[in-house]
């Protein structure tokens, strides 16, 4: 039986990818950001998953305004890093897990979540920056990845409650897969940031840290927080944080199991326009 053993949460700022790709990680501006992931890289080696289920958002890369799926699961064999306008990031292609992905799609749709199934998709910094932060700069990524894209570009995005419940459905789907696989679920994006208009540059440490606290101890109450609170308190792009609730919903304590163990917690301001937050929880 496949099982979810851990969840990882991290921001996915594009400038972090650029800093890595251009060899700037040792600069004083970037050092504290990357130091926050030293533990995580070692943890990834010590706790290597068989598959990563990676929740992220596409930033007008694979999905233009022609199609805007609320939840899209990648069932392809592989995905290429996208050219977002600067040329593709020099990172390995992403190998998928079509068998588990198709199984999850079928199971989750039968649990009343209407997923869009995607067999062709380039993946942008939303997916590749978390992999870089957690795995460094390997020749190939350590395991297959199932990309799960959430619309947080065009309002309304899915509610926190729906995201948490979707995570619970993903957990049930994974546990009904016959192969013995160790699966990590990652939630990415955030934390507080606003990239547009005269209020650009907004950061809210208090909101972010309260969010991290509740992600650990009380995800059900965080799931009840309406969109407007994210927009007002954490900036228009801070709304990405609802995606963390999908990964959190898949943890054992929300299905009657014990509370997760906090293996790592990190918070830093700034990376470019954004507050960087990071958690590792183990079941």
């Amino acid at each position, binding site marked *: 039986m496949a099982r979810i053993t851990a969840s990882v949460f991290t921001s996915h700022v594009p400038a972090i990818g650029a800093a890595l790709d251009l060899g700037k990680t040792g600069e004083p501006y970037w050092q504290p950001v990357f130091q926050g992931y030293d533990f995580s890289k070692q943890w990834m080696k010590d706790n290597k998953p068989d598959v990563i289920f990676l929740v992220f958002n596409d*930033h*007008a890369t694979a999905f233009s305004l022609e199609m805007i799926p609320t939840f899209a699961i990648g069932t392809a064999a592989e995905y290429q890093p996208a050219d977002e306008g600067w040329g593709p990031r020099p990172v390995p292609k992403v190998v998928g897990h079509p068998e588990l992905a198709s199984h999850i799609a079928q199971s989750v749709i039968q649990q009343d979540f209407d997923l869009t199934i995607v067999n062709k998709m380039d993946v942008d910094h939303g997916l590749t920056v978390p992999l870089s932060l957690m795995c460094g700069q390997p020749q190939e990524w350590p395991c297959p990845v199932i990309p799960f894209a959430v619309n947080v570009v065009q309002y309304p995005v899915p509610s926190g409650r729906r995201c948490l419940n979707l995570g619970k459905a993903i957990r049930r789907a994974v546990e009904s897969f016959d192969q013995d696989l160790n699966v990590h679920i990652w939630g990415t994006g955030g934390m*507080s940031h606003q990239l547009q208009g005269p*209020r650009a540059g907004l950061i809210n*440490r208090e909101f972010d840290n309260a969010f991290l606290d509740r992600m650990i101890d009380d995800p059900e109450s965080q799931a009840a927080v309406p969109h*407007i609170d994210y927009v007002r308190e954490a900036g228009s792009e801070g709304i990405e944080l609802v995606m963390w609730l999908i990964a959190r919903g898949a943890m054992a304590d929300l299905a009657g199991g014990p509370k997760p163990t906090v293996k790592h917690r990190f918070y830093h301001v700034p990376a470019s*326009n954004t507050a960087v937050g990071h958690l590792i929880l183990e079941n």
Partner: protein
Amino acid sequence: MPLDKPYLDVPGTTIFDAEQSRKGYWLNQFCMSLMKADNRTRFKADERAYLDEWAMTEDQKQAVLARDLNRCIALGGNIYFLAKIGATDGKSFQQMAGSMTGMSEEEYRNMMIGGGRSIEGNRYVGERK
């Protein structure tokens, strides 16, 4: 019954909802085309001619030519799409975001290093700082 839009009183912020998306469809699709290297080259060679290939309004074209991102957003643009123009110009996300605040690039960068823009006084339109 009108749709509930609780986000209209957030200062300095335009939420990209269905109405904005409809208004900005061609502006954003033009931006999307800049993800191809050939299109970036053609746009840079003659911006006006390239823009005229798209069913954008004249206001939208002028806003792009002026790189007035606040205006682009008011006319239906979304920042993740508009970022493709910035990438074509060789601008970082920080330079683009900063350009919308009325601050210089250095002032904006320093504000971020200093912990970012404070939430205090920035929650509601007309709120006293």
